[in-house]
Structure formats: C-alpha cells, structure tokens
C-alpha cells in the first residue's frame, strides 16, 4: 500500500510540475540556509581552533599583574622558573620569556619587531618549527651567545624574500647577533596578529648584552606546557598557590600575577563561535519552518483544487486511508526532494562563501542527515492536515465539485 501510494504520489507530482516546484521552493531555501549557516559556522569554529593551536597546544602563560598588559607588578626571576619546574606536577616544558621591541638593522634595511629572549624549551612549548638553519640550544643560552632565530616577516623585511640569511649578522639595539635559523611560517594568530615578526634569542643574551639588567626579577613571562592528558586546571591552581607563596601574598591580598590557559581561552572562543553558529542555525531553522507552512498552504489549496480527483478515486474504490496516504506521501516526497535540493544548493553556497568568510569548508555528513530527516518530518507534520482533509471528503460531494 505504501509503495502504491508512492507510485500515485510521484505520478501526481509529475502531472503538476509548476505547483510541485512552488511547493518545494520554501523547503529548498530553508534547508539551504540551515546547512550553509551551520557548515560555515563549524568552519569558523575550526579555523579559530587552528589559529589557537598555532600558539602551542596546552600552553599556559604566567604574567605579572592582573589582566593583559598590567604594568608595575613585580616580574619573575629564574628562581621562580626553577621552583615551578621542580614543584608543580604535570609540566612537560617550561621556559622564561623576556619581551622587548626595537629596530633590527641589516645593511641599509631596518625593521621594528618583537625581540623575545627565552630558552631552547620554548621552541617545543610554543610549537615552533624550523624553516631554515637551526634553533639555538641550551649551550647558547648558558654562554649568552649572540645568536638569533628570526621569523619570516623579519627575513622578508631585512633580507628580502627568498634570501637565505643564515650566517649573516644583524644589529639589534646596537648589539650584533648572528642569524642561525628562520622559523617556519605560522601566519596570523587568533587575534589577527602576525606571528612571524619576531626575533628569538637566548634570554641570557638580552640580559647581559642588551639591557644591562642584572640577574634579578627581570623575566616578563613564564611559558609552561602541560603534559598531554594532565588537566591544565590543576597546573593553574598549583602555579597560582606556589607563586602566591613565593611572593609572600597574604590570604586577603589579590594575586599580583595571572596564569593564562590557552585551552581555556580556546574554549571560550570556540564556545562563543558555537553559540553564534547555533543562533544562525536557529534563524535559518525558522525559514525552514516557514517553508513547511508553505507546503501546508499549497497542499491545502491543492486539496480544494483536486476535490474532483479525490471524488473519482473514492468512487472507484479508494479507501479514506489510501487517499490520506497519497497526500501525505506527496507532501513527504516533495519535502524530501526539497531537502536534497537544499543540501546541494547549500554546498554551492558554502563553496562560494567559504572564501569570502575566511572559514574553511568542512563537509559534515551529520548536518546533511539532520537537515534531510528534518525536512521529511516537516513533510509529515505539515502534510498531515491537508491529507486528512482530503481523506475526509464525501465521494458524492467531491464528485459534484466544480
């Protein structure tokens, strides 16, 4: 009986192509909107995640003061770094970090950039890859060697693109450094900043050769990477209590440092894009609902218009339930066809929009299945009322209908 109803329904749909097209168009647009929004939204979420993982996965940063860029709070010492390494469990790597900026000069070119002093550990913690040459080592750090590894942007500005700078000497704040490596391109960071406009050098070289600062409290930041699978919240808590103790803070005093957890930051950002995605999806879902009401509208008109056809079917022996099934199957078939067309349209749109939005185009079979099932459900939901009306017609009245 179902197969029969499908056969009759398809024949009726083909018999009235214009009407069928008008019925379907609302669903096509609704499904296309939902699938496009959700696909692009997921792409955007993934893009943000990728950006953040460029910073180094599972990265924690200890900074002086509260919030970003708080000045005045005491900085850290190497003894703080050693204390954290020895006393806090779950740490894979730890590196001090001194950040300053200034002009780097090579021949007639100069470029203002970040100058970052650290140890060899930082390359692992910060997820750096070498592009040319090599990284500096712990031996370089121990002897405060005047060597540096530069980012792609710095290479481009000082040497020109494609030039191998390894072995050349550059001057940074009147100190000469030998370039021993170029980092692989990282691109933009999570906040749109350039991650390749930096010069990395042993922190000892900055302290002894450039700033003239002694070996006191002069570390800007401490970079920590957590061990895979170890909950970073524990590290945050342990580092916080250790640092409070080392800074002799009374229980009623606020922290004069802060611990940032890149996983937490990533979570906040991805969850906000996720919220945005569901919001957009919900708005698009409303248009799908409107499409469903469109199906109901046209099916209701069609029942009136086809009253005589229904009368004929009843007269030759169709049962009410067969007429009901025919109209229901017509509605479901139309909305399923609309669902498939909508999904195809969505991929055309995603293909066009992905580049404009700057999010990768990620094919997710789940959203297709959901959109398809949802459009079929809309067919049943909004097809039922017209179908019941058709089935309840009286054969004599229906045959008399003009």
């Amino acid at each position, binding site marked *: *009986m179902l197969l*029969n109803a499908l*056969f*009759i329904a398809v*024949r009726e749909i083909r*018999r*009235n192509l214009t009407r069928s097209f008008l019925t379907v168009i609302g669903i096509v647009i609704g499904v296309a909107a939902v699938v496009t929004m959700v696909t692009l939204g997921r792409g955007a979420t993934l893009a943000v995640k990728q950006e953040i993982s460029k910073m180094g996965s599972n990265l924690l940063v200890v900074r002086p003061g509260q919030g970003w860029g708080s000045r005045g709070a005491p900085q850290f010492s190497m003894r703080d770094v050693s204390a954290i390494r020895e006393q806090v469990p779950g740490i894979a790597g730890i590196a001090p970090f001194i950040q300053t900026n200034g002009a780097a000069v090579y021949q007639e070119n100069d470029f203002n950039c970040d100058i970052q002093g650290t140890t060899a550990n930082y390359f692992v913690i910060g997820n750096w890859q070498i592009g040319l040459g090599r990284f500096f080592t712990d031996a370089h750090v121990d002897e405060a060697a005047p060597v540096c590894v530069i980012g792609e942007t710095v290479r481009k500005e000082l040497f020109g693109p494609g030039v191998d700078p390894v072995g050349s000497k550059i001057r940074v704040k009147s100190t000469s450094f030998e370039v021993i490596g170029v980092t692989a391109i990282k691109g933009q960071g999570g906040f749109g900043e350039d991650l390749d406009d930096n010069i990395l050098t042993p922190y000892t070289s900055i302290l002894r050769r450039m700033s003239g600062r002694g070996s006191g409290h002069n570390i800007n930041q401490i970079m920590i990477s957590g061990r895979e699978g170890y909950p970073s919240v524990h590290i945050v808590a342990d580092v916080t209590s250790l640092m409070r103790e080392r800074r002799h803070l009374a229980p009623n005093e606020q922290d004069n440092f802060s611990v940032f957890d890149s996983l937490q930051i990533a979570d906040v950002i991805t969850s906000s894009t996720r919220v945005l995605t569901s919001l957009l999806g919900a708005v698009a879902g409303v248009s799908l609902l409107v499409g469903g009401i469109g199906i109901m509208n046209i099916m209701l008109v069609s029942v009136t218009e086809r009253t*005589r*056809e229904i*009368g*004929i*079917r*009843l*007269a*030759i*022996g*169709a*049962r*009410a*339930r*067969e007429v009901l099934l025919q109209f229901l199957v017509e509605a479901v078939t139309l909305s399923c066809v609309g669902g498939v067309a909508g999904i195809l349209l969505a991929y055309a749109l995603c293909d066009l929009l992905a580049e404009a939005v700057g999010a990768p185009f990620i094919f997710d079979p789940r959203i297709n299945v959901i959109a398809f099932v949802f459009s079929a459900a809309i067919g049943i939901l909004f097809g039922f009322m017209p179908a019941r009306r058709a089935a309840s017609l009286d*054969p*004599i009245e229906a*045959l008399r209908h003009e």
Partner: protein
Amino acid sequence: MSAETLIELRGLTKIYGSGNAAFTALRGVDLSIGSGEFVAVMGPSGSGKSTLMNILGCLDSPTSGSYTFKGIEVESLNKDQRSLIRRHALGFIFQGFNLLARTSALENVELPLLYRGYSRTLRHKMAREALASVGLPDKERNAPSELSGGQQQRVAIARAIVTEPNTLFADEPTGNLDSKTTIEIMNLLQHLNAELGITVIIVTHEDSVAAYARRTIKVHDGLIAGDSGRSNG
C-alpha cells in the same frame, strides 16, 4: 423470477439534515433487481432518483431500511467497507466523464487496478484490453483534452469495466453527448449487458435512452411510482 437476486431494498429511507431543515429524499423504497438486468431509473429532478443511485452505488448510506447487495447487508457497512465493495464489484460512469486531466487514457483506465495492487504489466494488459473493447485501441496515449466527448465517455466506460465489475452504474451517461454519440454509447452499454452479463443500472430523463433498458423504474417524490417489473427470468 429465476435469475438470482442481486439487489434487495426494503423500506429504504434517506433523510438529509435534521430538525426543521430535514429533507426526506426517499420515503420507504422496496425494490429488487436481479443479476444481469438492464434497468433505467427515471424521474424528474428532486424525485430522489440520484439519492437512490448513490445508495445503490454504495456511495451513500440509507437513514433506515435495508439494502442487500449480493447477500451483503450494505447498510451496516462503514465507509471503508463500502469503498471495498465499489472497488471489487461496481463500476461508475458519470455525465461529466470524470477522467483525470493531463493523464493518458491508459493511465485513467488502469487507475482502479492501482488500488487493487496489480503489477504494472498486468495493469497495462488489462487496461489495453478494456480500451480495445470500447473501440479505442489506438487512443491509449491521449489525454482527455485530446479526445471527443464520445471518446472520453468510452474511456470512462473502459475504466468502469476494467475491473470486471458485477454491476455498472451510469448517471446520465449521455447527458453531454449528441444524439449520434448517444446511440453509440447506449449500444456499447447494451453490448456489455448482453455479452458480458454485467448488470447495468442507468439514470436518465430521456425516454429514448430508457428505451435501451429492458426494465424502467420511475421514481417520484421519494417513492417508486412505476416499475415495468423484473425483465429477465
């Protein structure tokens, strides 16, 4: 009265509406029709003949009284059960042909077979045979709009007989046709009655059409006013 009785009506009444607006269309009809008869039902409009036909055709149910068709007590059946009687034993021909528009003659004729769940091959074979038996073997691809009135009525007759029904109900089958086509259609109905033994019950107000029948029943004011009597036997 040797022929087996097909239709038996006892005290059949039909009242439309209720209270002050109630209208009595049939007021106690007794009638018996034998298998293989060719009956014409005549009467002025409003006489109740259409109501009688609708009840005989199992399209409507009586208010009271009994209707037995082939031993089945139709008055106690529900809508779906009446549908099944129509599907398996009855065929209908209408004044306005009532073919599906934009649908080929073949597809129109095979429509009742769809509800019987027959295979495509069987449907096409039976529909082609039915079209051939009404003299339209070469029109199976044509839609109703491409056929003359007489041809459309032939398609409708093919649709009615494709299921090999026991009884054929024709409601003013020639009302929309010219006199030449009327003769062709009536000859066809007569042929179906005589050769295939199909019981034919036809509603008409034309004496010339009623003359093809072997029995004439006159309905007046909700009652049988005249009956030429059971003709076969």
